[in-house]
């Protein structure tokens, strides 16, 4: 009996060792270019954050088509694999691990900052470059050397919309703040908003905590309205934020509303409908930016969306940022392949060298010219503040840039 147990244990240990050896040898083995240059993406295509993931998928696929149309990586096509990271940390972790084990040279994603804090350390430990298209919380690039982002952090853009609200209405005195306490993006951004308010002499009269999956905000809203705010500042995701705005307006609030990056998607229009009208938002992207890169992108987006007349031909920020993430990886791979042919490198060598190329490059993107700090933080020149203008009937609208 003891002997059988010992031999079973030995077999188990051997199998585990063989499996880990397998994994190690995959990373040390040559890059598999048989189906193209492997790049992975992990996007929230289902769950509460799916509204972002769907926008991002379009952007990544447009960039892929553009890159491969221009010859891919020096003649080799990019082979993109997209996995659904859901809208939760466990599914994002699983999708990251799956993509890394498949030998992806770089990853785009995950969609939410909350997921990034959980999944990015996996990529960091395995030495896989990550370019985040939409993580705006403080501390994302600081996760490690292999983590970078093309989405400007909240501290850079969020205060712009507060300043614009005060410029539009200098008589604003009382601000109410709402944020989702169980979401990394919301908790990070609300601190920045509150600091921006304080810097302008507007200490929030109330700070209301919600939760990501909340749908009814009657208690929080009525408590906030008791404080008679003339400005409401929201750090929420699209779904809960859209619902809160609708309920806020239905309960009679008529003042200014400033929202954070989580609501930076046209997918809020069907949620708050006519009540979306007038909300202010700072943006890291403008479809009106007159650069060749952006004009190519907007034209490609409009052409792709033409098949569905119900969809707006104007690209949202999340699509532009996802496009940019794919473009950055594609261009960095091409540069790397010219200096060190990918076929001569092991997977781990290629990943390490690619990270250096990503951080060392300058890119002409739909967001304008961007570069990276040595930590992986994006350096971007152009930021904008937009106001939502809903069409009559309240079914669709647009982010109208403010001067």
């Amino acid at each position: 009996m003891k002997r059988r147990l010992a031999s079973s244990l030995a077999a188990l240990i051997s199998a585990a060792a063989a499996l880990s050896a397998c994994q190690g040898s995959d990373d040390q083995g040559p890059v598999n270019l048989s189906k193209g240059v492997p790049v992975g993406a992990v996007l929230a295509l289902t769950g509460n954050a799916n509204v972002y993931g769907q926008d991002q998928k379009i952007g990544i696929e447009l960039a892929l088509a553009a890159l491969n149309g221009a010859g891919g990586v020096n003649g080799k096509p990019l082979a993109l694999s997209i996995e659904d990271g859901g809208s939760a940390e466990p599914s994002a972790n699983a999708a990251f691990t799956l993509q890394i084990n498949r030998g992806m040279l770089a990853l785009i994603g995950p969609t939410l900052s909350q997921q990034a804090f959980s999944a990015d350390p996996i990529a960091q430990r395995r030495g896989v470059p990550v370019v985040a298209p939409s993580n705006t919380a403080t501390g994302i690039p600081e996760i490690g050397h292999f983590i970078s982002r093309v989405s400007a952090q909240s501290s850079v853009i969020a205060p712009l919309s507060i300043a614009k609200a005060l410029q539009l209405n200098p008589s604003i005195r009382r601000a109410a703040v709402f944020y989702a306490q169980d979401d990394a993006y919301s908790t990070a951004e609300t601190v920045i908003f509150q600091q921006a308010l304080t810097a302008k002499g507007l200490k929030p009269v109330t700070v209301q905590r919600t939760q990501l999956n909340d749908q009814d905000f009657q208690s929080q809203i009525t408590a906030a309205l008791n404080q008679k705010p003339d400005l409401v500042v929201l750090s929420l995701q699209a779904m809960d934020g859209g619902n809160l705005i609708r309920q806020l307006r239905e309960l009679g609030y008529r003042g200014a509303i400033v929202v954070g990056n989580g609501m930076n998607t046209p997918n809020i229009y069907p949620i708050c409908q006519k009540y979306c009208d007038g909300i202010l938002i700072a943006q890291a992207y403008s479809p009106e930016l007159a650069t060749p890169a952006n004009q190519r992108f907007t034209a490609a987006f409009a052409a792709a969306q033409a098949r569905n007349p119900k969809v707006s031909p104007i690209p949202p920020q999340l699509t532009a940022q996802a496009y940019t993430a794919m473009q950055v990886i594609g261009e960095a791979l091409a540069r790397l392949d010219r200096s060190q042919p990918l076929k001569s490198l092991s997977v781990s060598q290629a990943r390490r060298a690619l990270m250096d190329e990503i951080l060392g490059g300058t890119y002409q993107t739909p967001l304008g010219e961007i570069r990276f700090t040595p930590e992986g933080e994006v350096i971007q020149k152009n930021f904008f503040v937009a106001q939502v203008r809903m069409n009559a009937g309240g079914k669709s609208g647009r982010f109208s840039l403010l001067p």
Partner: protein
Amino acid sequence: MEGLLQLLFNGLSVGAVYALFALGYTLVFSVLGVINFAHGAIFTLGAYFTYLLIGGAVGANGLLAGLQLPFALPFWLALPVAGMAAAAVALVVERIAFSPLRDRGSDPLLALITSLGAGVILVNLIQLLVGAESYSIPVGTLGSLPAALSIAGAKVRTVQVILLAIAGLLLAALSIWIDGSRSGKALQAVSEDPVTAQLLGINSGRMIQIAFGISGFLAGVAGGLVGLSVSIAGPYFGIGYGLKGLGVLVLGGLGSVPGAVLGGLIIGLAEACVPAELSGYKDAVSFGFLFLVLLIRPQGLLGRPQPNKV
């Protein structure tokens, strides 16, 4: 006074949703002694059915992408029709997940697991057919009714008042049916002792189907109303309500119809009593409150103590 009234409105408006959800839950439990975990998925379906029936279109994803019915019903008609469609699905769930196990005399725990499986399958089916995106019932669906009402300085959204009123009406109708009709009494008899009821000539299987049908109708109507109140947050819309509904069911007393309503309203009020600045913790408070009540009264507020069998 104004603050107290506002707190009452806040609690009742949320509690009505929980109560309506738990009514259907408790009806099946009262007959079968099993919690139907597919109830949340049927609630979700009710919201989607309502959305489609009032003329909503399926989005860009899923096998039914772009689908729109060739007609559009007014909300007040769409809601009961959606309820009936949800009832039909509940009956299918009963036929697939409950009936075969009951016929074999299986342990009720197995039915609980199969209902969980049926719920997961339904949710995935919704996702497959209409995608994972959220849907919104248009603002203005209630016609010329004002968006909110102001009573003695306290404010409440009209849709919440309607929800509360419908929950009350359905409770009254259900109570009248259960206590005042022959079939309602037959249902009570089956819930007391299905074998004896069968011997007395009551068709237990039929009564169970009726319970499932009504439960599905209630879930469908609740889903449609909550969908009107907030956006339909994708296929997993009913999951959170399912968890809360379970708490309400236990608090009110397993199998007690008035208990489901009382439990819903109390949980709603408990949540509303959480200071607004700390309302992110309201779930912890409501479940903590549930825990305390059960320590004092393990059978729930209106439940009957389980007799010890010797």
